[in-house]
């Protein structure tokens, strides 16, 4: 952080910013004059001096490359202007120049704390354009739900860990990061990659669950509960924590809707809206879970909502493991991809021996999945909020235009509304409670 502009505070002579600082010499008449002026006027003079402080783009509390230009009056923020775009890579432009399948790895790099959820969101959007979202085999739907919920747990663990660490509670960070490592192990087992998973494909997933994965997942779910309890013991009724986050940056219901917030930030303000319930996709209809909401809309509520969402995700994961068609090792050979050779790559053995499959393989790889002309919007309940893809297709294997509605981008736009009036030291808490990712914000 560097003070860009600093004006000396002059209490004596009547001075305003822009008039130049005229500091009266001691014992001069000006001082005598000033002392006779009412105290309120002097206070107003002091308050009119503002300092502009540049926070970021490389600041530990901005979790990436967010820059905020703060205008301070003493320790109180009077104006905040977020500056985004430092991580802009032009994903939407890139998407227009490649096939639908080729874009899947780019979705990993949107919200890079929950790549599995992004993969699921993107695949569902393209499938909606193709009109095959209802044809997805049940096993595939359950696998995808498990992926999305694991990503939610992982993302919230990081969100709360970093939030707490920024406010000085390093123990929480260590606890949650330990658990995230296990989610990475699970992601590695299904996709081969810990971080950039690219697990889904248009019309299915890359491959079925490996043997023993569901038991590993259940073990993780069971192990996470005591850790969550410990985190709650460390934070929820901790006097220091509560004092720092309660009644801070209250977002009213009206503001939350007006600014288009989504995910835990919207629900923290007391609006019961979750796309998994409001527009059920995949097999969420068959699963039981609750939507936690806040009552005040402060940073404390947003923290509580995330804690409860993790518990609900574990509930969903347990149900998925119990109900997944084909069971743990898929003895009954349930399919995980749609049965359409023009959408999903055929098995390699058939490509080598059958003419039709060879043609399908060739067409899919060179031209991409042939999508009909039309436009769709699909919103997915990602850990950070609603990740939406607007795809405008003119037919063929590449989108004509693809807009990514990223939750972090929209959630950050409320900063200039909620920052003024807060203390400088509260910025860290508010940013932590908003839980954003710049990779997704800047695209």
């Amino acid at each position, binding site marked *: 952080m560097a003070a860009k502009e600093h004006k000396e505070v002059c209490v004596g002579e009547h001075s305003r910013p822009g008039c130049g600082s005229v500091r009266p010499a001691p014992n001069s008449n000006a001082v005598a004059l000033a002392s006779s002026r009412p105290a309120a006027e002097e206070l107003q003079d002091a308050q009119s001096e503002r300092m502009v402080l540049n926070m970021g783009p490389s600041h530990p509390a901005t979790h990436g490359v967010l820059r905020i230009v703060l205008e301070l009056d003493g320790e109180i923020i009077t104006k905040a202007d977020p500056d985004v775009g430092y991580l802009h890579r032009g994903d939407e432009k890139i998407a227009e120049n490649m096939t639908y399948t080729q874009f899947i790895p780019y979705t990993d790099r949107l919200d890079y704390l929950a790549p599995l959820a992004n993969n699921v969101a993107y695949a569902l959007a393209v499938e909606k354009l193709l009109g095959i979202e209802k044809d997805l085999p049940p096993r595939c739907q359950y696998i995808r739900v498990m992926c999305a919920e694991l990503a939610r747990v992982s993302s919230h663990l990081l969100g709360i860990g970093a939030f707490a660490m920024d406010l000085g509670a390093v123990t929480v960070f260590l606890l949650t990061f330990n658990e995230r490592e296990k989610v990475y192990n699970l992601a590695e087992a299904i996709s081969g990659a810990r971080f950039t998973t690219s697990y889904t494909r248009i019309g299915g997933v890359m491959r079925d669950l490996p043997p023993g994965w569901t038991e590993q997942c259940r073990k993780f779910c069971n192990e996470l509960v005591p850790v969550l309890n410990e985190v709650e013991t460390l934070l929820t009724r901790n006097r220091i924590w509560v004092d720092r986050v309660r009644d801070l940056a209250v977002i009213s219901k009206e503001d939350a*809707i007006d600014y288009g917030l989504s995910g835990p930030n919207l629900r923290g303000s007391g609006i019961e809206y979750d796309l998994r319930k409001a527009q059920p996709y995949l097999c969420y209809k068959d699963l039981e879970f609750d939507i936690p909401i806040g009552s005040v809309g402060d940073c404390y509520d947003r923290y509580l909502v995330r804690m409860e969402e993790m518990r609900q995700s574990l509930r969903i994961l347990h149900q998925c493991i119990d109900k997944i068609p084909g069971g743990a090792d898929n003895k009954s050979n349930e399919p995980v991809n749609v049965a359409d050779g023009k959408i999903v790559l055929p098995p390699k053995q058939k490509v080598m021996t059958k003419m039709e499959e060879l043609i399908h393989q060739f067409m899919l790889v060179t031209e991409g999945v042939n999508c009909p002309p039309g436009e769709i919007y699909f919103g997915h309940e990602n850990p950070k909020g609603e990740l939406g893809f607007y795809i405008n297709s003119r037919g063929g294997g590449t989108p004509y235009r693809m807009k990514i509605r990223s939750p972090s981008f929209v959630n950050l736009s409320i900063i200039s509304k909620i920052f003024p009036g807060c203390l400088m030291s509260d910025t860290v808490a508010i940013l932590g409670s908003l839980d954003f990712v710049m990779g997704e914000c800047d695209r």
Partner: protein
Amino acid sequence: MSALEFAKKIKAKFGDLISEPTKFRGEITIQLGDAERIVEVCEFAKKELDFNYLVDISSVDNYGEDPRWTIVYHLRRLADSCELRLKTSVSEEKSELPSVTTVWKTANWHEREIYDMMGVRFRGHPDLRRILMWEGYPYFPLRKDFPLAGKTTDVPGVAFTQPAPLEGGPFVTAPGGKDAIEREPRVRNPES
């Protein structure tokens, strides 16, 4: 009430300005004939029909067609999660339409992004600056006539005017020779 019925209500109110609702994959789209009336339509949708949540605004560049720009608004009622897509067209000469920031505050950043990426201006926007690119960047990169690999420029200190810092350096396996535009394998020149 379904999205189709809401679309018909808007059509009943504004008559010929609104096109017949079209349905694709269960989504209802209506087209507004005159972009100048967008605020009026949005205000009606929000105040009378309770479309209180603006999901997204996007823009499409119909390069080589007239009108060139399509602005797409995604409206939602949080009460029953009913969604409606509202589209309007803007010609290239005009490249301007009224801002809906007075209706939904979230439009602020979406409109800034459209201005930044495509160069369509929003009249009445409180703070129409670039948002993802930096102040002073000379192009609108999401336009179809902007090549994927970028463009060179005479403006000093802007990307693509100089070789990249590591170009030809120790970690680059295939150094130099071609510039970024020629090296980009997926590039398709929109002019050709």
